[in-house]
């Protein structure tokens, strides 16, 4: 297993946002996470990436190392990249600089040589800029390299958030609703880019997604969260038929057959 999460719980005051979750993801897998709003999906990502610390008793093992108590930047440098639901791109920095920050952990010169502006700093800067320009070209933003990221369109921002995460050369990429609130055309562009990146760099993916169609088409395994608990897990086909999922997703008011039809059409 590339990622093995056990007994993960997170409380905010009286609210249990994530409750006793286990999760295992194989190298090269595309794992989906679905669930209604507020079911704890983003919190799960925040726990894996070290932004929040879980309640005692949890363990998060990534690539053979227990990263439960690591700091976010250590986890990132160890190969776990993530995007944020609200993107959090550096709007005041250029598009290229956003990627260069993603690449920060892989830039090899120290503070002292940066202060005196030594030759190797310039050589290394040239190297990483070239490398990041290649990545920008791959995600289709090369023309915007010097533009402040805040001036990009909605779809371009998503691509940039993706690019910044990829600049870390991660083994595992956590995507928090990468296609939310995009037009169908842009959803296609973002998803195609994600899958192209996966193929090119041999990534393992965990995708939180609201658009069921996306999850059903791209994921091999899907976990379903409700009120912080994992209520189901399996192949998309099996998930579609699970009555607990149907209830969680669409409420009990609808007739079972109606719901089934809806999920099938997804």
């Amino acid at each position, binding site marked *: 297993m590339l990622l093995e999460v056990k007994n993960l719980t997170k409380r905010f005051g009286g609210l249990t946002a994530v409750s006793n979750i286990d999760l295992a993801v194989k190298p090269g897998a595309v794992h989906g996470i679905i669930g209604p709003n507020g079911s704890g999906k983003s919190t799960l990502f925040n726990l894996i*990436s070290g932004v929040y610390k879980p309640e005692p008793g949890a363990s998060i093992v990534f690539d053979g190392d227990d990263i439960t108590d690591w700091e976010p930047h250590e986890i990132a440098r160890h190969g776990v990249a993530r995007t*944020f639901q609200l993107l959090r791109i*550096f709007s005041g920095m250029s598009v290229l600089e956003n990627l260069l920050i993603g690449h920060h952990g892989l830039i090899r010169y120290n503070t002292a040589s*940066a202060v005196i*502006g030594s030759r190797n700093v310039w050589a290394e800067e040239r190297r990483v800029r070239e490398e990041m320009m290649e990545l920008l070209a791959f995600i289709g933003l090369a023309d915007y390299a010097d533009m402040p990221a805040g*001036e990009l369109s909605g779809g371009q921002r998503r691509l940039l958030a993706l690019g910044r995460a990829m600049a870390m050369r991660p083994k595992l990429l956590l995507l928090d609703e990468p296609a939310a609130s995009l037009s169908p055309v842009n959803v296609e562009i973002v998803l195609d880019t994600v899958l192209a990146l996966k193929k090119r760099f041999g990534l393992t993916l965990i995708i939180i997604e609201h658009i069921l169609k996306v999850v059903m088409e791209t994921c091999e395994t899907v976990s379903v969260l409700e009120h912080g608990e994992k209520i189901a897990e399996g192949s998309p086909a099996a998930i579609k038929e699970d009555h607990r999922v149907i209830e969680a997703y669409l409420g009990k008011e609808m007739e079972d057959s109606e719901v089934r039809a809806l999920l099938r059409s997804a």
Partner: protein
Amino acid sequence: MLLKNNYHQYVVNVIAINVILAVGLNIVKGFAGQVTVGHIALAAIGAYTSAVVSTKLGLPFWAALPTAMLVTGLAGAIVGIPSFRLEGAYLALATLGLAESVRIVISGTESLGGAIGYENIPPPFIGSMALDAHRSYYYVVMPLALLGIYFSFSILSSDIGRAFKALREDQLAAAASGVNVRKYKIIAFVLSALYAGCAGSLKAHMAPGFLNPNDYTITEMVTLLLMVVFGGIGHIWGGVIGAVLVTIINDLTQDYYQYRMAIFGSVIVLTVMFMPRGIGGMIDHHLVRRRFKAIREAKSRAT
């Protein structure tokens, strides 16, 4: 030097010292986004350390300057520690507390001259020649100011500078991108403190070799903030532009000293409201934005 007038030479030296101070403040405040009001106290620590090292230990300026920078750098690391937990106005308050206590301690310490001031700080010597005139001191101050500008350019255009900006923009996203947030905060505070220490030491040894704790009040800090905000916060030239302009304005308006705080305060507010990136930012806006517009237009024509 073209400036023959002794007073003008003094002003030029003050400008150079303020450039060093402001460039340092721009690193921690402008680039790393840490709202510190402790910079002026660091300058005081640098100045008094240099004064003590040269008078009480009898070391030359050339040893007092690096010693002052070292001590100030350490003090900078301490000023930076509250930034691990505090942000914005809270950090400003914490650093203000530290800054005021430095000034109060100096004012109350007799061996540091107390409220009267520290006298007879020797000028730098080259061999047996004393650089005790403003005209000759220029040749100490100006190279150091240029060196300071050069170092700031190297830092800020490197990965270190980018990490600072990432902190300013979004600490959480910076951490998730692999930036060690605490480490870079401390680096920013220490680097900017080294500048403050250098400027402080230069002030101490400039004729007439006299320091007064009243040169390190909140008024001076506001003036310093004005330089960085007006010049262009987070702009690589911001500290330089601001220090030159504000020092000159400060000098021309000496007769209205009592109104200065009110005027500078209002200028800061107005700048933040109407020119948030300062003069440096405005220049960029006109030069650089045009290019993006061109890219945009080319793109939209293509599709």
